[in-house]
């Protein structure tokens, strides 16, 4: 008998024991502990966001204002970076070794890990990338990745269009709380202008894709896909050619041009000078460029002057408002004449203002002193102070109908409402019954405390062009296939009868024909305009001009404000006329080309701006 045959049981027991251990191990890995299963999901599948393409922005003739362009991000895979390449990398990207170290550290920390690629250098243009691509190919751990970013065929209308920028940490956290899951960490969003106002429409809806990948991260099979909803296109009211011309004309100047189609309130052009290239913000240099523009430039190019600067005094163009109110109130007849008494208020030499037309034509200051006096002092109260209060309150109410002192409601952010000095204001300033007409008469010539934004000035031109009403000025007429907001087709009336506009419009025609704005004349079309010369204590006066054309059935109303441009007729009027010529005739006449040349040669800058914001 075999003495060791019972040892078989030991061996069988060992086998059973090992089998049991494995069974419990499998039970633990597969059934009890879900960690490994979760890790497997992490290894084998990825949820990737699909970014919707941002909507394009077109001008009124379907010409592209903002589109897309290809750019290249340089990606870094830190685990593959070789020490020996560091010098080449530094040379390629013109950075010091410390900066490079910092960037590599950054690519391994936070949300990044060393075996996943992250962005090393952002937004190289095609030509920039072409230059370094061969060298990049030699460096392990660096490669180019193509992407689409905002593209600007022309560097124009930066203020109206606005710009987009990578979402900041703060904005991201905020967005996460309010509208869930709209933004991801590397998204761009509109910061100013139309990009901000129409952000939700432009950005579309993010999609995502859950796919299985192989060991190298290649997509093998899509499990689930939710396509992105592309952003809607914006069809603006801007006229690309007109905008281009406006920006050219306003080069080396401070100020604004705002052109409106009176019959619809559509803004044809909106120039804020000086301007900047919106493309600067869509690329890698954003923070640096932003700093320079914002802080180091005393000319404040980021300021959207047409809507934001409401501290512009309107000057003589406001005489039109006084005239219209006075006519409607019945305190003035078109035939009324006053003496041009320079003792009351300063004026220049001109023919006697024997009627309203002549007075407007020469912008006679004493005449409008009298007109404003008639509006304010109505004899409704025996007390001179009290009468002034009543009169001012009435005037303020009437002036508000022209859209002054209130927000018009244009569809870009940061619009300011301007200022109409009223009873409360003077009560605060001087005290009750401590002020009267004699204190506030400088309002009569648009000086004093009145503040008007250039948009409101252009709107005034549109009101007169329409003979009494306006539509809220706006920049967008169609979003995707949805027509505009109904508030933009609502007529706002000034409550001034159209009959009263006849002498005013006639006078404005005269202003251009043989008045203060003869430089605005065009052979082809009759322009109606009014100059303004806004007094300035420390430097040259500001040059203002509002106009519309043609006289009958006007197509364009325009306001031009050239800071420190001296006379209204010197710069603002010719700029307006060139713009009008362009818009109505598409080609500039020889006369306009000459004007344009003269305007473009002029450099009118004042680094010590009066306006503080």
């Amino acid at each position, binding site marked *: 008998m075999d003495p060791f045959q019972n*040892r*078989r049981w030991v061996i*069988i027991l060992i086998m059973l024991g090992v*089998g049991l251990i*494995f069974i419990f191990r499998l039970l633990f890995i*597969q059934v009890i502990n879900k960690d*490994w299963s979760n890790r497997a999901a992490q290894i084998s599948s990825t949820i990737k966001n699909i970014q919707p393409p941002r909507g394009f922005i077109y001008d009124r003739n379907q010409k592209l204002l903002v589109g897309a362009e290809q750019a290249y991000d340089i990606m870094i895979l830190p685990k593959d970076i070789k020490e020996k390449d560091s010098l080449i990398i530094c040379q390629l990207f013109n950075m010091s070794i410390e900066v490079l170290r910092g960037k590599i550290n950054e690519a391994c920390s936070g949300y990044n890990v060393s075996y996943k690629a992250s962005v090393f250098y952002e937004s190289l243009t095609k030509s920039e990338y072409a230059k370094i691509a061969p060298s990049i190919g030699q460096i392990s751990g660096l490669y180019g990745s193509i992407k689409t970013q905002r593209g600007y065929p022309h560097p124009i209308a930066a203020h109206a269009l606005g710009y987009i920028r990578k979402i900041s940490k703060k904005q991201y956290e905020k967005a996460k709380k309010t509208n869930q899951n709209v933004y991801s960490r590397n998204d761009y969003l509109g910061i100013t202008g139309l990009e901000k106002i129409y952000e939700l429409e432009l950005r579309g809806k993010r999609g995502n894709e859950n796919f*299985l990948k*192989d060991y190298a991260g290649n997509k*093998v099979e899509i499990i689930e896909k939710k396509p992105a909803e592309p952003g809607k296109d914006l069809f603006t009211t801007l006229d690309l050619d007109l905008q281009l011309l406006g920006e050219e004309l306003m080069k080396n100047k401070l100020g604004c041009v705002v052109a409106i189609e009176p019959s619809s309130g559509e803004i044809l052009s909106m120039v804020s000078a000086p301007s900047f290239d919106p493309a600067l913000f869509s690329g890698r240099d954003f923070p640096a460029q932003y700093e320079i523009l914002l802080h180091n430039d005393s000319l404040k190019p980021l300021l959207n002057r047409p809507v934001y600067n409401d501290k512009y005094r309107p000057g003589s163009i406001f005489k039109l408002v006084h005239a219209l109110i006075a006519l409607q109130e019945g305190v003035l007849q078109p035939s009324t004449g006053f003496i041009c008494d320079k003792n009351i208020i300063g004026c220049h030499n001109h023919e006697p203002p024997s009627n309203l037309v002549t007075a407007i034509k020469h912008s006679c200051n004493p005449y409008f002193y009298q007109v404003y006096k008639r509006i304010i002092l109505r004899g409704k109260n025996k007390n001179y102070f009290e009468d002034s209060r009543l009169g001012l309150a009435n005037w303020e109410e009437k002036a508000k109908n022209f859209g002054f002192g209130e927000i018009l409601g244009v569809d870009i952010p940061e619009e300011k409402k301007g200022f109409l000095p009223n009873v409360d204001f003077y009560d605060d300033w001087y005290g009750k019954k401590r002020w009267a007409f004699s204190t506030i008469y400088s309002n009569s010539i648009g000086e004093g405390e009145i503040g008007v934004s250039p948009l409101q000035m252009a709107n005034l031109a549109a009101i007169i062009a329409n003979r009494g009403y306006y539509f809220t000025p706006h920049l967008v007429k169609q979003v995707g296939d949805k027509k505009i907001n109904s508030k933009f087709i609502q007529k706002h009336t000034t409550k001034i009868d159209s009959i009263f506009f006849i002498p005013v419009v006639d006078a404005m025609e005269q202003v251009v024909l043989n008045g203060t704005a003869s430089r605005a004349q065009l052979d082809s079309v009759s322009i109606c305009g009014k100059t303004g010369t806004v007094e300035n204590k420390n430097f040259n006066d500001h040059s203002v001009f509002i106009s519309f054309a043609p006289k009958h059935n006007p197509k364009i109303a325009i306001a031009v404000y050239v800071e420190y441009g001296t006379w209204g007729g010197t710069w603002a009027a010719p700029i307006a006329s060139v713009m009008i010529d362009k818009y109505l005739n598409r080609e500039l006449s020889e006369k306009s080309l000459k004007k344009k040349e003269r305007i473009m040669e002029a450099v009118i800058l004042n680094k010590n701006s009066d306006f503080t914001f």
Partner: protein
Amino acid sequence: MARRISIWKYIDKYLLILFLLLLVGGYLTIYSSSFDGLNETGSFWSTSSGKQLIWVIISLLIGSIVLLVEGSFIHNSSYIVYVIVLLLLVGVLFMPAIKGAKSWFQFGSFSIQPSEFAKLSCSLAFARYLSSINVKFQDFRTRIKVISILIFPAILIVLQPDPGTMLVFISFVFVMYREGLSGNILLIGLLAIIIAVIGIFLKASETNFDLLGSSISGNMFFGFILLLISVLSFLIIKFFVLPRYRKEKFYRLAIVTVIGIVISLGVNHVYDNLFKDRHRNRFQIMFGIKEDRTGDGYNIYQALSAIGSGEGTGKGYLQGTLSNDKYKHVPEQSTDFIFCSWAEEWGFLGGLLFIIVYIATLIRIVMLAERQRSKFTRIFGYCVASVLFFHFMINIGMVTGLAPVIGIPLPFFSKGGSAVLTFSLLIFILLRLDAERKVVLR
């Protein structure tokens, strides 16, 4: 001479069915793990699963022939087979290296790995020698001879180098145990492994203990404990054991103590001086001290993820998303890590079934071995059981993270022609020998 028998009448149906289950399950898993989801344009037979199928068919054909061969012929040709394989092992060293090892004879797109055949040839030679009349395992000279049968192929395999396959020769310890090797040696071996594992663990985890105010390394502390235990044992023996047995016990205690201390301190030395960072990392990962997804821990992390993702019932055949050629998240998914593919697609239930079938096969082999009148067949049967068991234990232990990563195939599952042929022949030869159990007495 034995008289002719009808093989179908006497063949062990249980083992045959278990074997076929493993063979078919293994082939299906190979097919799935090398499935890349593409519509093959070329011939199926040139794909890796096609080649494997050829090997399976070859194995079945040769196996069927073996079933028809007389047991005495097998017995008589044992040494010849041993010598032929030994010559092949020498010859393979002159072949060009593939993946850094000179392990293969290459014939066109087929290759042969003689180290696999060594498992068969050694089993035959081992059984033949031990079953010879006048040979008793208790003799010291017998032991030396038995070990030298194993040591020559082992050395040749190490020269390739293929340390994983070499380790398989350790499995013959089980056979030796059955044939009379002292159980104490097995126990001492087990004890040595336990001490080594604890030592490495303490070393890898860099554990420190406070002893009388001064901090000492965990390993020193462990050595100290071992010493304390042996002193305690010494006292126990001194006071509780009868004097006539004491001497023997003291002798054993001394050996165990010396081995324990030597291993414990040896681990210290090996870990600090001989191990490379790679090895240290592997142990740290195995003990769960460190998680490493990318470097040395990558294989096991991916393997465990794949197995874990099978959950209760698996993803379904060909539905794996980690361990096949389409995704390749698990390295060596068709060879050493093929169990991941099985466990991912069939889940815990599949894993359970696999282990039950495997253990059942092993136990059945042991039962067959034990019912032999022929010593040769019994020893050979134990060789088969031991070799298969060792592969199973190390391979499954490795992929489930219980054993260090050693390149050892899973019999019938891992891809490899020589392997499937060898393991099939082990079974077929046993089946043939078993069928003759009532006929012959050798």
